[in-house]
């Protein structure tokens, strides 16, 4: 099974390792969306490091817990977490977005063990996850389904279609975590479409809703672990885009920029990875 129950210190070390990975991947591959990846690292680390019941050696086990990273533009973080928790060799991360490689800049179906869905077009992951959760209900299988959404993704109408369906069918084995970093591609989320009050919106739609600081690993683990007896769960994770690298934090230029080798060195130093 996954390293469920890892100590807080282990999870923090894993998160730092993953952040260093995604910074380097962005530099080597020249890819965008680095800040989006850094934003959701702790959600992924908490999920794979301490909550999900999934055996990295049996990533297609029908009874496994499922996680869809609906914000597919941040898949470098998912690749790194999967690699660092044993789904595939960490050396494969060097092949991120190389021509002819198997780890595209946004995931393709079945591109790597543990990648549940090819996302990248926003507004699909929640709905597919609802299908997986409903399948578990129909097949009397008690696995859980987790979906990580971006706040920008809450612009999509399908997100709210799903938000109404899941409570109507009491899909309590479904948990959504919203990476609420308050930025989307070209501006402040709140200025583009009115998201506030985000938690109250999900609550009003019938979700068991909780707000957490999305970079506090114990809080995130606790929020992900809980299951409501009837309602699906929505976790509003307040996060910082570019989290973990001081000169990237809350600077939306890093939605598109990739770092220089010197910036990678600086970031690794800050993260305590060399």
């Amino acid at each position: 099974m996954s390293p469920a129950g890892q100590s807080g210190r282990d999870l923090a070390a894993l998160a730092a390792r993953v952040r260093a990975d995604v910074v380097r991947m962005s530099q080597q591959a020249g890819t965008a969306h680095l800040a989006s990846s850094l934003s959701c690292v702790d959600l992924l680390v908490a999920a794979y490091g301490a909550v999900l019941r999934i055996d990295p050696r049996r990533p297609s086990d029908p009874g496994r817990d499922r996680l869809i990273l609906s914000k597919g533009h941040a898949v470098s973080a998912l690749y790194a977490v999967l690699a660092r928790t044993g789904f595939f060799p960490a050396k494969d991360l060097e092949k991120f977005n190389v021509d002819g490689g198997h780890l595209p800049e946004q995931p393709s179906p079945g591109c790597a063990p543990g990648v549940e869905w090819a996302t990248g077009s926003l507004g699909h992951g929640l709905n597919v996850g609802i299908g997986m959760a409903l399948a578990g209900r129909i097949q009397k299988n008690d696995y859980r389904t987790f979906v990580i959404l971006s706040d920008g993704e809450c612009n999509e109408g399908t997100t709210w279609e799903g938000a109404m369906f899941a409570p109507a069918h009491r899909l309590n084995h479904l948990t959504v975590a919203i990476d609420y970093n308050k930025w989307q591609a070209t501006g402040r989320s709140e200025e583009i479409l009115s998201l506030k009050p985000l938690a109250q919106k999900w609550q009003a739609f019938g979700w068991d809703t909780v707000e957490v600081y999305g970079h506090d690993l114990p809080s995130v683990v606790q929020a992900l672990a809980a299951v409501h007896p009837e309602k699906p769960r929505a976790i509003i994770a307040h996060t910082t885009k570019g989290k973990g690298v001081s000169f990237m934090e809350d600077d939306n230029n890093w939605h598109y920029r990739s770092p220089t080798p010197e910036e990678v060195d600086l970031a690794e130093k800050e993260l305590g990875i060399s």
Partner: protein
Amino acid sequence: MRNAFADEITRLAAADDRVVLLMGDIGNRLFDKFRAAYPDRFYNCGVAEGNMVSLAAGLAACGLRPVCYTITPFVTYRVMEQIRLDLCYHRQPVVVVGTGSGLSYASLGATHHSLEDMGMLRLLPHLKVTCPGDAMELRAVLRAALRQDDPLYMRIGKKGEPVVHPDVPSLTLGEALVLRDQGRIALLSAGNMLPTALAVADALKARGQEARVCSFHAIKPLDTRLLAELARSCDLMVTIEEHAVTGGLGSAVAEWMAAERPARLPRLVCCGTPDGFMHEAGEQEHARHLFGLDVSGITERVLKPA
């Protein structure tokens, strides 16, 4: 056709506990039997078709066989990207059923017409595009759809269409059914135009011309073996569809002719709708007449000298 669909999907659900029926808040009482027999495999997904189609993909990824059902424009145009990515890119065995296709709901206006659906959907990799000609073909296509592992679109009519086949035909997806096999004119019918195609053949016979009638229950995969045979043995091929000629069966046959360049190239006449919307009021029969898709309109085009 929709009653045949409701009956057949209920029978198939009895035989296969992977079958899950999703519908978009239409068909008042149509699925009462299904719902009563299999309450945990029936979901009214509401007026939220994007969620319905992506959700179906999630069900299929977990080993179930979902069937999505609602009025054609809302389960095709509106959800084109859900079909493209969640069904086709992931190659999930989901059956998408559009009801009231073509001009079936003519009086409801262009919001409820579907004259471009087959053209749009046959562009998508892995997706089979089917259009059964009557209630019996519908049952056969639906059975076949659940026996294969690709996403599949089935466009059906409404209710009360004439039943052509005496019973459920034996059918292989993509192999057209030949109902009449004599003559040097070939009428190639897509979907619910089949009864009309047969009536056109009768009208031609009365004018001394024998015509073959073939029901193309699928335009993808296209029965190119039959097309090659017809090209060898006919002088005129006529496609008949309640769909735009552009992108539909007419286009598909023209593409085949252009690409294959058969030794004999019969003249091709494409009967379908033009590049435009219908604005005036009117029922299906009126709409078909307007577009030259009634028996007399098609017959005249067939008999018109080249």
